[in-house]
């Protein structure tokens, strides 16, 4: 690639990529890297006050929001697990059964992926309401008494919303991985008498481990960072998610210190998934360069 460049460029001339990268990198440093670093720094400063670094914001976070942090973590872990299990089952189904029914299903499954979160939130807002379509439909089937409808603007409804949006997304990634596995592996396992569960657990899932992990890492970090759905579904009710608390702290109190301390808590929650994601992407990029 570079073989044609050298020699023509004298010692003093800048290599061409400097100019090409300059606008994008400058923009990212000013608009992303700096605010990111600042969010960590500000979490140790009380807004509007002079003075040194303090842990006061974190004390306040502990006093006021420890339940919400636990709630956020619980919602995220539960949904990552749920999405993982259901998405693997559906991806296996799409891989092994190729008929009209599965083709139709996989087409329907694509829709939620492309619907933005703000629209999903509005959908769930009306669909899961005490007298919304879900409750009235279940009442028609005799499963719900409309005098005591299901209350879903909480953990359960939030999970329904996340699962609705994220399972199809995870299927897209995981099914892509399964399609790379050649039929001969499955046939070989079957020919020595492997039953379906062991074909799944001992051939398909291990061979597709990397795309399953990538899907789960992305789902996990997206759920922690999502503001729209919890904000429109749960709002200020207790318990709610960290993202909603950050918005409240900023909009009602202009308290950037505590908001940033909450932000750092969400960074800490994604530390492992972020490290995994960054490492695997950089490895991928290096491999592509060396090819």
């Amino acid at each position, binding site marked *: *690639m570079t*073989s044609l460049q050298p020699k023509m460029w004298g010692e003093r001339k800048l290599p*061409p*990529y400097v100019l*090409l*990268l300059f*606008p*994008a*990198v400058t*923009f*990212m440093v000013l*608009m*992303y*890297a700096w*605010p*990111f670093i*600042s969010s960590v720094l500000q979490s140790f400063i009380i807004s509007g006050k002079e003075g040194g670094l303090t842990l006061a914001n974190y004390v306040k976070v502990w006093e006021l929001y420890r339940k919400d942090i636990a709630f956020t973590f619980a919602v995220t872990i539960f949904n990552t697990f749920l999405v993982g299990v259901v998405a693997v089952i559906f991806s296996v189904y799409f891989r092994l*059964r190729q008929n009209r029914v599965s083709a139709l*299903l996989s087409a*329907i*499954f*694509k829709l939620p*992926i*492309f*619907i*933005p979160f*703000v*629209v999903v939130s*509005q959908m769930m*807002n*009306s*669909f899961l309401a005490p*007298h919304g*379509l879900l409750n*009235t439909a279940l*009442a*028609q089937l005799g499963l719900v008494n*409309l005098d005591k409808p299901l209350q879903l603007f909480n953990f359960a409804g939030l999970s329904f919303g996340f699962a*609705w949006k994220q399972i199809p*997304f995870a299927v*897209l*990634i995981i099914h892509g991985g399964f399609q790379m596995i050649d039929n001969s592996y499955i046939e070989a396992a079957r020919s020595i008498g492997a039953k379906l569960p062991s074909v799944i657990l001992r051939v398909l899932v291990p061979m597709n481990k990397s795309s399953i992990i990538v899907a789960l890492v*992305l789902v996990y*970090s997206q759920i922690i960072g999502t*503001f*729209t759905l919890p904000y429109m579904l749960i709002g200020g009710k207790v318990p709610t998610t960290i993202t909603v608390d*950050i*918005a409240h702290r900023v909009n009602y109190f202009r308290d*950037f210190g505590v*908001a940033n301390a*909450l932000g*750092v808590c969400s*960074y800490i929650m*994604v530390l492992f*998934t*972020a490290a995994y*994601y960054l490492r695997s*992407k*950089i490895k991928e990029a*290096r491999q592509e360069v060396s090819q």
Partner: protein
Amino acid sequence: MKRILKKSAELALLVTVFLIVIGPMVSLFLWSVAQKWYWPHPLPQAITFDYWAQALGLKTSLAIGAVSIVSAFTLSILIALATVVIAMAIAIPAGYALAKYKIPFGTIILFLFLLPNAFPQQPVFVNILQVFTKIGLSGTIPGVMLIHILVGLVYGVWITNATFRSIPPSMEEAARSVGATAFKAFYKISLPLAAPGLFSSAVFVFLTSLDEFTGTFFIGLPFINTLPLTLYSSSGYNMQFASVIALILLVPSVIFMLLIQKVLKAEYVGGMG
């Protein structure tokens, strides 16, 4: 017998999944045309398209409490168009450079473009708000555009980078070997070959801007009301109107994404809105 059982189990699965996936969308549609819908009725008792007409500016009636979204819609489209132009003008050179050159500190630069996908973005928006408030950019259209460019740029760089990577370097080298300048080789060879990928990338950036909520919520409110923010502010008091806006946002996203999805890596499409 066993086959019939298996077939009907599969059919039951299909119906259940279909209802779960489609249910919330049906709810949205029903609300957008519901004139009267009192529970415990499973369906609206009276249907009207007045909310649609009013939202689209075809009709003005104070009785149903909806307002025209034409101005919010125009604003959203204009912001999205400007975002695409600026973000792509920055992203294409960067994506190209990352694909074609061996760059010292390349890993750090890659890192910079990966971080927004790895960490929650909301705290970053909060800190941008602080800076923007000081320099008078919060609550302004340029301020909101900068946020949309930030969100779009990351995807823009990744998608254009993948596109340029897929073009064999030998093609440009051939052009250079017969005397073309670096720019001419890019302009005549790589650019046309990359056009479909670049176009998809631009469409994607357009959609992320059109659907962007979180950043606009912090930077734009209460002065800049894009379509997603109008949806949010009406969802509390006017279910019909909010549903109309939600459907207006949903349709272009689904249609365009279905068109460009083959060019995109699966992991890009998850983080929208």
